[in-house]
């Protein structure tokens, strides 16, 4: 094992210990038993592996949506909006075209990501601000379409059913395959090389004769492709969208946490997605078993994400977002 991997391993172990410690302290302060809370969370979280796989699959992809542009030094906060668009497109196109709906979801996400990238590359529009604006616009567009045009004839609170379905394991394998694809893209292709040079230093990218605009647009498009697919997988698993938007809301943002915990590495993203998915699942059982308020789970998951990703996120900030 290389030194780099060894360091990542010990860092993560340390961060996990710190996260457990901070969470326990918080639970104690709030008057809950940290040992049983965390024990319930982890045991039940891993009790149903298929469930974990199902919840993790879209998270892997929304993490990739953030991760690929990040490697080019871009902050794609738009994974959320890309997921909405991907989910809508999948819902719509899967009616007629079945599995191709997944592709449609991914492509629409890519189109959106690419547009954000082009705005940045050609007009200098900050991708973070543009992403946040499109996120909210698409939130309401989705809500509108679900309650007006794609509405279920019997149950007006929700959309029609999706026209294509994959099982939990198949979805997870799809996500895993895409993560491996992302791995190959980053480390074994010319484009991946150019993305990483750009992420390491814009000046070095210019020096190396890399077309910064092209790489900006492409990396954002690829991010969008993953973001759109993440939304498609999520809606596919639920089977429909509803007017609470709870199935989609936050899938993009959570992906940022997953990517950071996974140290911006595709395989790291798979592992951290599985980890977070099991925490979220286990959190339900903490409420059920110990009678804690459901918000407590959010707090635990939030603290875990924060502590686990903090060392890496800080390093990232110190380097001004430079990554190899």
């Amino acid at each position, binding site marked *: 094992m290389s030194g780099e*991997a060894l360091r990542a391993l010990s860092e993560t172990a340390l961060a996990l210990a710190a996260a457990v410690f901070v969470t326990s302290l918080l639970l104690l302060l709030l008057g809950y038993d940290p040992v049983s809370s965390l024990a319930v969370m982890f045991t*039940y979280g891993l009790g149903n592996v298929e469930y974990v796989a199902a919840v993790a699959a879209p998270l892997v992809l929304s993490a990739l949506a953030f991760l690929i542009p990040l490697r080019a030094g871009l902050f794609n906060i738009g994974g959320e909006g890309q997921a909405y668009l991907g989910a809508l497109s999948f819902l719509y196109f899967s009616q007629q075209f079945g599995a191709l709906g997944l592709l449609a979801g991914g492509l629409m996400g890519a189109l959106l990501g690419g547009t954000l990238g082009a705005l940045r590359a050609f007009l200098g529009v900050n991708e973070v601000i543009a992403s946040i604006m499109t996120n909210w616009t698409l939130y309401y567009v989705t809500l509108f379409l679900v309650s007006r045009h794609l509405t279920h004839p019997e149950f007006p609170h929700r959309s029609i059913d999706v026209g294509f379905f994959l099982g939990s394991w198949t979805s997870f394998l799809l996500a895993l395959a895409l993560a491996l694809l992302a791995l190959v893209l980053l480390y074994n292709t010319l484009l991946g090389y150019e993305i990483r040079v750009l992420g390491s230093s814009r000046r070095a990218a210019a020096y190396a004769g890399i077309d910064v605009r092209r790489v900006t647009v492409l990396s954002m498009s690829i991010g969008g492709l993953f973001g759109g697919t993440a939304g498609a997988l999520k809606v596919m698993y639920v089977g429909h969208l509803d007017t609470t938007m709870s199935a989609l809301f936050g899938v993009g943002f959570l992906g940022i946490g997953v990517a950071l915990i996974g140290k911006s590495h595709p395989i790291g993203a798979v592992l951290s997605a599985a980890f977070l998915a099991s925490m979220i699942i286990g959190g339900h059982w903490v*409420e059920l*078993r110990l009678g804690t308020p*459901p918000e407590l789970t959010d707090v635990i998951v939030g603290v875990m994400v924060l502590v686990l990703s903090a060392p890496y996120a800080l390093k990232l900030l110190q380097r001004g977002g430079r990554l190899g």
Partner: protein
Amino acid sequence: MSSRLPLPPLALGVLLVALLLIGGFAVYRTAFAPREVKVAVLFDVGGRGDLSFNDMAALGADRAAKELNVKVDYLTPKDLAHFVPLLEDLSKRGEYELLVLVGFLWIDALDKVADKYPQQKYALIDASTGKARANVLEVLFREQETGALVGVSAAGMARELAREAGGPIKVGSVAGMSIPPLWRFHIGYLFGVKYFEAKTGTKVEFAWVYTGKFDDPAAGRRAAETMLAGGAKVLYGLAGLTHVGMFDAVIDWNAQGRGRALALGQDASQEWYNATYIPLSGSKRVDVAVYRAIEMVVKGEWKGGLSVLGLADGGVGIWDIEGVKYFAQIAYDTKKSKVTPERVAEIVSSQRARYIKEDVQRLMKELEDKIRRGEIVFKDPRDEKEYDAIIKELERGNLNAALAKGSVS
């Protein structure tokens, strides 16, 4: 190759296994506890804290826990993706005698899971899958009935407010999503207002808006402010947590001297929130529904199928002063309100006396009796089209268009 690709943090995997082992003990500790009747209440994504629908369900379950000696656990899914797997996991384990599913968001999950676990009993509150199953009890309410009574009183209040302060006689409602229970409220509320018009000859303007949300007070506030600015005098809250924003808008409207208005609550008694400006709430006894479902299991009287609770069953109505006091007590005990229950009851009584004049009281009584005796029965729209048609007819003053049985003139 290994040195080329910085290896991923395998640490996560290793630690997961370690944690799995630690957690294993906890399962063994809890898995083989002595057997007792256990019930799980599964909320929708909003969960408790809405001061109405979900809290009411919890109230009924809590009461059952105390009075029927049942162990009740609660669960609030993070998002829609967890509904099916959680329900499936719980059904598979079979440790709960009854799973109480609160709200319409559970329809799909229940539909997918129920037939696979015939031994597991489910109670779906305030929603229906449209299918009868022996292991599923579905409880619906006749929202039209409470809506109609509230409608008459709201119209009466608006008349008094217009008399005192001028402006149009106008009532409105801030509603949540366009779903069947809300359709029924709409029909009832509009029916009540038109009934008032027909009986008193006083023209009343009517406004209705869907915010699309049950958990967004800010949206409720915006919708309410628009209506108030449009001259509405009485606003009926039909949007869960969203209409708490409506309450705030009405309270501020009065406090800032921008006009005079009242708010009406729904489901739980919400008068305690501000007794002066919320003199009345419609009741929808989600608590009763939950309690009864649990009771059926405990007493061995289980019967699946559809159960519809109306005025006559005590399932819906208008909260009396005792009910107002009861909820004011809870609010007082949980420090949500600083006003004593007695004081709340006192204010509510005087406000009701002031704004619900005798003729209106008489009208309400008359209508209530007709409903209780079954002389009139409201229509139950099967889809949005039928609902729209009924509303259109009602707006024209055709009261009987809302009735499946009987007639009024």
